[in-house]
């Protein structure tokens, strides 16, 4: 656990850098977090995914996995791999300021 300053906000993160308090997130934080993992620009499609994840988390209390995200956000899995290359499930949760999805054991 550590506190770091991102986009002028103090945010609490875990050892992997994921926010531990989703309430400390805002869109400016998202832009910075995205830059840190090599996503230089957040497009409308990125925001569509991020907004779905935030709303779904608020509703469910768990971070959505890939299949849930692609089924419910309307952004296909292939596209998620383009938007958040290599590890979309982890990366999109990271940018959205949510816990890493659990993988459901």
């Amino acid at each position, binding site marked *: 656990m550590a506190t770091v300053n991102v986009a002028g906000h103090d945010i609490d993160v875990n050892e992997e850098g994921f926010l531990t308090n989703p309430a400390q997130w805002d869109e400016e934080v998202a832009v910075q977090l995205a830059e840190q993992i090599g996503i230089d620009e957040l497009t409308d499609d990125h925001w569509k995914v991020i907004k779905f994840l935030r709303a779904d988390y608020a509703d469910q209390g*768990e971070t959505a*996995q*890939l*299949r*849930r995200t692609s*089924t*419910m956000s309307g952004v296909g*899995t*292939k596209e*998620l*791999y383009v938007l958040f*290359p*290599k*590890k979309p499930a*982890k990366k999109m949760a990271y940018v959205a300021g949510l816990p890493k999805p*659990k*993988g*459901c*054991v």
Partner: protein
Amino acid sequence: MKRLLVLGAGTAGTMVVNRLRPKLDEGEWTITIVDEEEIHYYQPGFLFIPFGALDPADVVKATREFVHDGVEVVHAGVELVDPENNTVTLADGRTLEYDELVIATGTRTRPDQTEGLLESGWRDTIHDFYTFDGAVALHDKLRTWEGGRLVVNIMEMPFKCPVAPMEFSFLADAFFREKGMRDRVELVYVTPLDAVFTKPIAAEHLSHLLDEKGVHVETDFYVEHVEPGKLVSYDEREVPFDLLVTIPVHMGAEFVAKSGLGDELNHVPVDKHNFQSKKFANVWAIGDAADLPTSKAGSVAHFSVDVFAVNFVEHVHGRPMPEKFDGHAICFVETGNDKGLMIDFNYETEPLPGKYPIPKIGPFSLLEESKINHMGKMAFRWAYWNVLLPGRPMPMPAHLTMAGKYQSEGA
């Protein structure tokens, strides 16, 4: 008269009716259980069939044999639940009314959900062992297979018995060694996760074991489609195979989706501590059919029913539910050569090393190979048919206990 209607006569459904029948007054409650299958499969046994360690006949019995007197058994498929009107329509057109409904129709493999899987050599170069037919077909295949690259792959999370694909790899290593052809077999384990298991301490122990047995691991591989002889991921990587043993996408029953009761995989969203549907107070889902954030496993069904049976009786008498399910799961993990290890965990506590005490039988060693763990796993089949399904008490608490477990400092 009130009616408790249970859909599905698998592990969870059978235990629910058998536990509740003695607790609910026969003058007040009828209990009906619905399942289209007349055969009850001992699913943990499927793993052993491909290697000839169990015979197909060892894992099947008649469903009706296990259901207590005083429970009505209906053999029919389920078409639709109408939770607004408390009715269930069966595939044969009959309609059943209920006061309380328990959905225990499990989760099933859906090879049709992955493009190309059924068209690229199904039951020839592509096999599964999560179905009875699949396990038997794979046994025939392995008997004459001459070697090559054997890939075990997981298509999607969650799937039943999350350690089974690893156990399959361990047993395959031992099997080919015994046949004197291990040098002609390359074993590869392909997972969409970033590690071999979702919980870090267990993942470390298990990945060490895979390494020891010469199983190559490919992580973060989420399959987009299958072609003859290769898996292709969304990020356009390829894994070639001579023989694929796949764990297909798992989904709950179709009627769950049609009835508006499911999530994107047709599992029923429920309160993870008491199994009550998030939408309807008189609908419950238990066992693999539920969307609980823990393993889809027989042990979870067992511990869930321990909690559910107590709660349900209080609930129908208008009293608060006293018990909370903690997500407890126990898995025996076969590691080959008549050894096994055991993992024990819940929603909060990941699998830890140490000992698992069971009066008169244990202790079993956690996260460490031993012969007694293997014997425990093999003996469990007897206990399943004779103790668990009939609803007799097992000497294991429903909730996780920390007795015997080691925790590292600061954990």
